[in-house]
C-alpha cells in the first residue's frame, strides 16, 4: 500500500499541533480517532495475540516522535507507516511460534470459521488485506479508511473491490477443498 497525498480531516491539524505542543489530551483524542486503524493494520499481518501489545508500541512511538511530524495533515499516513514498520519489525525479530495453532478452535465452530476468514484475508497482498481488515474487521467505511490512512478514496475503492474479489475466490477455494 502506498501513501498518497494525505487528506485533511476537520480539526485534525489543530489536534496534532496541540499534541505536539504537549497537550496530552489532544493526543488522547488522536488515539481515540486512530485506534481502529492501527489495530486493523496490525491485525492484517501479525498474530492476533500480539496486536494489542504492538498497538501500544505504535502509539508510544508516535507520542515520542510527534515533534518530528512537520505536516499535521499527514498524521494518519505517518501513524500508519509507524504501524506497518512495527509489524515489519515484529516479523523480523520474532521467533516463529505455534501461537496460530492455539488460536484455532474446534472445527466447524463459528470461531473456527472466523479464524479461517481472517487467515484468508491475511493471505492477500498487503494493500488488499489492510484495506479489507479495516473494512470487514474494524467496520470502517471506505471514506473513513481513506481519511485515516491518507490514501485517496479511489485507491481505497480499488483495493476494496479487488481485495474482495480475491477473497471470495479464496474462500470459495477453501470451501471446495
Amino acid at each position, binding site marked *: 500500500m502506498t501513501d498518497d497525498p494525505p487528506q485533511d480531516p476537520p480539526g485534525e491539524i489543530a489536534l496534532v499541533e496541540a499534541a505536539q505542543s504537549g497537550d496530552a489530551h489532544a493526543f488522547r483524542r488522536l488515539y481515540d480517532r486512530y485506534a481502529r486503524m492501527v489495530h486493523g493494520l496490525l491485525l492484517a499481518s501479525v498474530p492476533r495475540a500480539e496486536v494489542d501489545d504492538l498497538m*501500544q508500541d505504535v502509539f508510544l512511538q508516535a507520542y515520542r516522535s510527534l515533534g518530528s511530524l512537520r505536516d499535521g495533515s499527514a498524521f494518519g499516513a505517518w501513524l500508519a507507516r509507524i504501524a506497518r514498520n512495527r509489524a515489519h519489525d515484529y516479523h523480523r525479530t520474532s521467533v516463529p511460534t505455534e501461537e496460530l495453532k492455539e488460536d484455532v478452535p474446534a472445527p466447524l465452530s463459528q470461531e473456527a470459521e472466523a479464524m479461517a*476468514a481472517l487467515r484468508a484475508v491475511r493471505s492477500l497482498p498487503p494493500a488488499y488485506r489492510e484495506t479489507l481488515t479495516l473494512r470487514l474487521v474494524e467496520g470502517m467505511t471506505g471514506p473513513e479508511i481513506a481519511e485515516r490512512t491518507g490514501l485517496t478514496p479511489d485507491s481505497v475503492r480499488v483495493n476494496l473491490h479487488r481485495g*474482495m474479489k480475491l477473497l471470495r475466490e479464496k474462500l470459495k477455494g477453501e470451501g471446495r477443498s
Partner: protein
Amino acid sequence: MNDDYLWDGSGKPDPEIRRLESLLGRFRHDPVRTSLDAGQTARAARRPAGGRWVLLATAATLVIAVVGAYLVSRVGDQGWEVVRLEGAPRVGSAAIARTGRLSVGGWVVTDEGSRAEIRIGTIGEARIDPGTRVRLVRADLTDHRLLLERGTLHARIWAPPRLFFVETPSATVVDLGCTYTLSVDAAGESLLSVTSGWVAFEFEGRESFVPAGALCATRKPRGPGTPYFEDATPSLRDALRRLDFEDDPDSRASSLEVVLREARPEDALSLWHLLSRMGAAERGRIHDRLAVLVPPPVGVTRDGVLRGDREMLDRWWDALGLGVSSWWRLWKSPGPPG
C-alpha cells in the same frame, strides 16, 4: 458484487460481506480494553490477569492505556536476570559467571572490580558500577522497585511513568520514562543525574521533577533538594545546596541572593521548585525573579502563586518549556472530560 455496500455500507447489503463482517467483527479493536474511564486511577483499575493486556485496562491516563498495559503485562514472576559485565559481581553469595537470577529480597553486589547489568523485567535495564549494593524490593506488575544502598546505578527505562522506582536512604526515585544515573554515598546521600526523559525524586510528600540535563541531590532527613541544570554556575549550585540542606538563616538569606542574582532563564526550573519550598517572604522575591525570566501565563497571579495555588503553579510550569510535563501530569490526574 455490490460495491456501494462494500464501499460505505449503503445500498443493498451483500450477503457474503455481511457474513464476513459478522464473523470478523469479533476481532475488532475493543475500546473498553484500551481507552480510559475518567476518574479511575491506574492502581484502582488493576484486574486479575486474564490475558496479556488486561492488567491496567481502564487506567486513568493515556499513558497507561497506550503503553503501560503492554509493558507491565509482560513482567514475569521469576525474578530479574543479572548479567555480568566485568569482574565477579554477586547475586546473594554466589558470583555470577555469565548471568544470574535476582529474586525479590535478593542483593546484587559489585566489588571495586565488578560491574553488572540488571534486566528490569521487560521495562528497562540498570547497569551497576563497581562498589554498589542493590536489592530487589518488588517485582510486581505495576511496581518494579530496587533499593540502592550505596554505589552507582545507571537506569534506562522504556516503560510509562511510575512503573520503576529506586529507593535510596534519603528519597525515592520515580521513573517517568527516562535514562539516569543515581549515586548513593557512604552517608546515604544521593545525587541524581538525568540524561533523557524525566525523573521524580520523592520523599514524604516532597517532590522534585528532574528533566534531562538536570541534577538533584538528596540528604537525610530532608529528602530531595532543588533540581538544577548541570550548566548552572557553581555559585548557584552551591547556593541551592545551602538553601536545601542548611538551617542557618544568614546563610540561607545570602544563598537566596545568589540564586536570584545568578539565575538564567534555564534556571527557572530551580526557581519554580523554590516557590513551594521557601517561606512566604522569600516566595514573593522568587516569584518576581521568575516572572522576569519566564513571564507567568495569563491568569496566573502573584497572589495565587504566593498562596501555593496548585493549578497556577502547574500552569506556570507549563510555560517553562520543559517538554513533556503533561505526560507526568496526565498520569497523576483523572482523564480529561469527554
